[in-house]
């Protein structure tokens, strides 16, 4: 038991990750005066500010279309949830401090200096009411990637110690224990031993060499351990040499959501170093959306050079196995609708692989009205599912998703992200809904053609 446990008890038995308490409106971390907090926020924001982000800051024409596709505005009608408005203090700071006309803005005081009070007020907009799902990016007539700007704003907020309490606590715990949910190496080892025993499968751990390094989300370790069994069954059929490593298994990266870049880098480095240590040719990321965003698209940039192995999401790997004829599947006699995890599909580019797998399962695929890159978010991404005070808002956005699923009339709801899955579980319990989100991975593992022994 470490200090974080008693300080921020996590309700592991609840259907989703959450921390007790904070009724506090604006959460703050660390002791510092307002000037320093503000200074840190701005430096944190500007630190990685390149030409791309600046271009976005310059380009907004205030058309308001981003609001019309954002689940928070659509469900509440409150204009403060307009995606580009969520960046207002940072936009002001940019125009005043770094933009090409910054001197003019300063001399004539055209943009006021941002205050700490404003940043505190914006905490709700930058964290509680943005899952970084990137739907706004797809509608913007100027092509502004608003979701990526929210990521930069979070860098500033994290540097200034202005992160919602539970998200911050989750990150702190991950940094201290190697997992945000208490899935420490010892816990992982125990779980694996128990699962091997219980399900008579072999789950290699800490092999010295392997072609494939398997990673896992602690959400799966703690809440959906059957996923690990499913992975083992599938890897056996794939015939690959593979292993988990206790020095690099945790695929979640809540630091990325919080905006803690150092933490994000540390978490990614563990996986990268473990993969290099075992000589892996492939690193497989589990059913976890942000893990894909963090390692597949940001990992090499934080590492400082191209990764010497390929990074694939499990659905991509399943599709490969099916194409190579290694995974023979029994048909699933059901109609299915697929929920596209934002970070894997819209912002990750893995749109076809999960559908290829579903086709191989012989399901009747009933797409939602808006799907693929235009899908509605489950409402739990971007770390939002951890933020307790955001729950009422999150349930409202979840209603869009429920309606979408209902409209398809499909019997099964399948996805490939355990963060979406816990959001679905929580929403299901809240609304007493009869649909349970299924894992694509587990569906495949349950429908492998029985082996001829």
């Amino acid at each position, binding site marked *: 038991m470490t200090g974080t446990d008693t300080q921020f008890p996590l309700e592991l038995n609840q259907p989703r990750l959450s921390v007790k308490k904070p009724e506090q409106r604006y959460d703050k971390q660390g002791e510092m005066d307002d000037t320093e907090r503000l200074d840190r926020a701005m430096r944190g924001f500007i630190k990685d500010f390149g030409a791309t982000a600046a271009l976005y800051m310059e380009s907004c*024409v205030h058309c308001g279309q981003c609001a019309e596709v954002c689940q928070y505005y659509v469900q509440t009608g409150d*204009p*403060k949830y307009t995606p580009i408005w969520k960046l207002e203090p940072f936009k002001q700071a940019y125009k005043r401090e770094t933009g090409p*006309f910054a001197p003019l803005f300063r001399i004539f005081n055209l943009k006021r200096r941002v205050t700490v009070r404003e940043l505190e007020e914006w905490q709700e907009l930058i964290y509680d009411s943005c899952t970084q799902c990137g739907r706004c990016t797809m509608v913007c007539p*100027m092509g502004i990637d608003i979701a990526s700007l929210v990521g930069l704003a979070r860098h500033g907020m994290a540097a200034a110690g202005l992160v919602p309490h539970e998200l911050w606590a989750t990150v702190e715990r991950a940094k201290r224990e190697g997992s945000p949910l208490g899935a420490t190496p010892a816990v992982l080892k125990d779980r694996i031993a128990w699962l091997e025993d219980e399900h008579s499968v072999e789950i290699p751990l800490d092999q010295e060499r392997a072609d494939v390094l398997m990673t896992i989300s602690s959400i799966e370790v703690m809440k959906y351990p059957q996923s690990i069994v499913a992975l083992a069954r599938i890897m056996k059929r794939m015939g690959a040499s593979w292993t988990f490593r206790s020095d690099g298994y945790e695929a979640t990266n809540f630091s990325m959501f919080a905006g803690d870049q150092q933490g994000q880098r540390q978490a990614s480095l563990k996986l990268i170093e473990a993969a290099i240590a075992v000589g892996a040719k492939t690193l497989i990321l589990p059913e976890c959306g942000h893990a894909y965003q963090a390692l597949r698209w940001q990992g090499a940039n934080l590492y400082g050079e191209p990764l010497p192995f390929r990074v694939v999401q499990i659905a991509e790997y399943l599709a490969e196995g099916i194409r190579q004829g290694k995974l023979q599947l029994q048909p699933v006699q059901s109609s299915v609708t697929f929920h596209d995890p934002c970070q894997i599909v819209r912002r990750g580019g893995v749109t076809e692989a999960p559908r290829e797998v579903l086709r191989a399962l012989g399901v009747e695929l009933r797409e939602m009205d808006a799907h693929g890159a235009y899908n509605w978010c489950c409402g739990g991404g971007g770390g939002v599912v951890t933020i307790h005070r955001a729950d009422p808002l999150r349930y409202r956005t979840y209603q869009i998703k429920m309606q979408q699923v209902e409209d398809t009339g499909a019997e099964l709801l399948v996805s490939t992200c355990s963060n979406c899955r816990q959001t679905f579980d929580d929403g299901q319990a809240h609304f007493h809904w009869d649909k349970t989100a299924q894992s694509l991975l587990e569906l495949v593992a349950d429908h492998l053609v029985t082996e001829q022994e």
Partner: protein
Amino acid sequence: MSTETDLLDFARGPALEAALIIMVFGIFWRLVGVLALRRPRDLSEPRVRHAWLGGVKTIFTRMWPRREFRPRILHWEAVSYLFHFGLAVVILGLVPHILLIRDITGLSWPGLPTGVITFAAGVSLISLLALLAHRATHPVLRQISNFDDYFSWLLVFTPLLTGLMAYYHLGGRYEDLLALHMLSAELLLAWLPFSKLAHTVLFAFSRGVTGTIYSRRGAQT
């Protein structure tokens, strides 16, 4: 008598020159100020090669909203297009405008009949009024709008209106109206680089960049 022609001479001469210089230099400054910032190489393994082609594609595909988004935005998008088309017809179709552009750039093309121009200007003005009313009443637009939005609107509206007035000799002497028209258009040109109106140039860059980033990942743009 001489003051009025002086004003027109000023509008045709030094004012035009100054406006053009400010516009060109301003746009240059704004673009360089942004594009000269760091552009770190993306070290992740691209899913798609030659992703810049996707960037170019996105410059065009973002001209019209996706099916999924249309029900909530298409009507105002259409009004905005009416305004933009009308304005383009007026700027590029009216013979005196073409002559002016020829003087400055050497490029020339046939003009459109004045009836068409008048119609286009009318459509533009009416859609601009509608867009202003929309901005002033819609909660989202009220929230995010600032001085730039309203001032830029005024600077686009005025030359259209004064141009029509001058052409039909409404409300004053032709020379005065023409001078007013030219001066207001010059103010617009000089204001453009410092305001949201710079989207006339910036749109291609921001769409292109996002299109490239997302194409590289094999994602939809």
